[in-house]
């Protein structure tokens, strides 16, 4: 039964990781706007505006 010595801590540890992940996601507000998250994932405004460089934009009148 020595197998229990490491299997039980592993099982508990995995459970705790799940619990802390859940508590963290809750704390960071991931359940506040469930509908919006579905749309935000499609928008690209977090990417740098690659096609138009800032210099080019400045050069416009």
């Amino acid at each position, binding site marked *: *039964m020595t197998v*229990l010595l490491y299997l*039980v801590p592993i*099982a*508990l540890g995995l*459970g*705790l990781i*799940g*619990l802390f992940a*859940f*508590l963290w996601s*809750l704390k960071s507000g991931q*359940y*506040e*706007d*469930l*509908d*919006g998250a579905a*749309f*935000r994932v*499609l*928008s690209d*405004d977090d990417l740098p505006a690659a096609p138009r460089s800032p210099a080019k934009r400045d050069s416009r009148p």
Partner: protein
Amino acid sequence: MAEAVDYSIFLARDAEGRAEVSLAVDGVDCAACISDIENGVKSLPGVVHARLNYTTHRLTVAWSGEGAPAEVVQRLESLGYRAHPFAGRVEEEEARRARWLLRCMGVAGFAAMNVMLLSVSVWSGNVTDITPETRDFFHWLSALIALPAAAYAGQPFFQSALRAVRTRKLNMDVPISLGVILALGMSVLETALHKEHAYFDSAVMLLFFLLAGRYLDHEARRRTRAVAGNIAALRGEMAHRLGADGVPVLVPVQALAAGDLILVAAGERVGADGEVVSGASAVDEALITGETLPRLVGPGATLYAGSLNGSGALTVRVTAGGEGTLIDDVQRLLDGALSARGAYVRLADRVARLYAPMVHLTALVSAIGWLALGASVHDAVMIAVAVLIITCPCALALAVPVVQVVATGRLFRAGLLVNAGDMLERLAPVDTVVFDKTGTLTLPEAVLRLPQGADPRLLALAARLALSSRHPLATALARSAQGPAFAEVEEVAGAGVMTRLPEGEARLGSLAFCEAQMPADLPADCSLIAFRLGDARLVIGIAQQVRPDARAVVDALTARGIAVRILSGDRPEAVAPVAGQLGIADYAGGLRPADKIAVLGQLKAEGHRVCMVGDGLNDAPALAAADVSLSPASGAAVTQAQADAVFIGQRLAPVLAALDGARTAGRLMRENLGLAICYNFIAVPLAVAGYVTPLVAALAMSGSSILVTLNALRAAKPAAGQEPVAMGEEVRA
């Protein structure tokens, strides 16, 4: 907006000390709106943060320096969205509670899974070759997980049970808390005595199931509340407050405090309770006292929020501002709805009041019985505790809220915001539906009907004069106005408005007020408003458009054996065509609020259960008098305050959906209570006889909870014979 608007009441400080405001935004209906709004607002000077919550249609804006909410409102307006700041203190509290429940649920779920892992090993070991040492080790390990988890996750129940006991009442949480604590305490004792059975798994699983039910219930209410809150915020009740320099500033009524001076123009609603300082006028207090004749007020007279100022401007010193006035009714109603637990839940509490003493008595009797039969004190106490654990009302506590959650969600998708928690119960047995005509069966926007050869010049003047009146017919006319309102318009309460123009005296109001004759070529179903300029007279018909699906809904209601009636304040001649068009035989017109109440009272005396659907201010008392009441979202604020539910959109279908949903919900709740009681009839004798092992307890408890929940899910879909209601597109905040 040319006028200065002061929204500072809505400004708050966030955690980092930045000025922050929340706004309810109308018209958010696409993914692109998110970046449109956020980028648009972020480009305003000083704005450091703008985030739109797409679920609740709320925008949070933060500034680095001083906040300027009026700018945000203006910017959103230019982008094509209507917005109004929002005081979300109550909702913040709600959100915090939702997160707390979710945290408790997470902890209980973690504990339930891990304890069950150990329990299953013990159960399978008990029938094979587990050594007592390993079993004890597993039990102690379970205790290590279950005790702290239960102490944390059980708080919602322990707190509620403690409150109930302190007020010398019994609710469902009392037997729940007792069961959980006893199960844990006994399990620790058994483990210490190296016995086979421990109930750690049952205790935490019970908490997990109940927390899931409680969280869902809480979320369903919060969602309805958020939409209703947006509607209330976008209504944007404002008042003219006189500053220290005597300049009136437009402020939201929530900002009014006792001692403030407000200016109430003719035809405006009074924003807060107060005392007249100067000016004289006649105020219409039909909303407050039910008195239809206007009351003459002068300096020193008391005014109530929500009354309609008639003829003259008044300066009023506020005696009670913001909270505690009638204008605040929607908010108060929602708060009331939140604390008022539904009658079905009350029914569950009633069951608890009977159930708890019975269970405790059964446990005591079985302990004494086993002692009398010669069992040891330990065994007798064990059996008593087993009875308490097995009767811990898991299924009973879930039976009602789960149905309520599912049914409220179904009604929400159909465009119905439930205000009162017990509305479903009161709506289920309804056999008579009474409709108001104007604005309920018909659309709130009316169309103009003109007699032949109407003078367009007179019509244009009439429309401009109509801008100064708050009468619904005048409002319809005012929509076609081109040009500003006239100055110095006097309102003759109950008759109309008048002013002096270069061409002579102009009057707009009832036919008698303008001494006009009913023209022959106007259709009979329109309401009439007359305009007189000098000797020229124009009678304008305001015809209402019946809601597009009104006929279908009335037919469907009749098919369900529900009597449909119309009680209208409008003229009988105007009611008749609508009634004819909809195939309603029972109708009455020309009723005052008191008459409507009398008719409702008579119907109730005949043993009918009456649902009233109305929108006007004059319907408010009738809505309160009916067994259950619905109101369209376009209705008056006070009317909605009386209504048990508010429906959104142009169609009448939500009324039908509400009835169908309530009937299904009522049936399922009774079924669920029956199932839960059935379960007890089977389980209790087993427990008394001493056959309940932890395995049996776990199976019985989860089995009954799952059965009740699955049964409740049936409330989500229309039952056979109920027409599916088109859902979705009309539910907009």
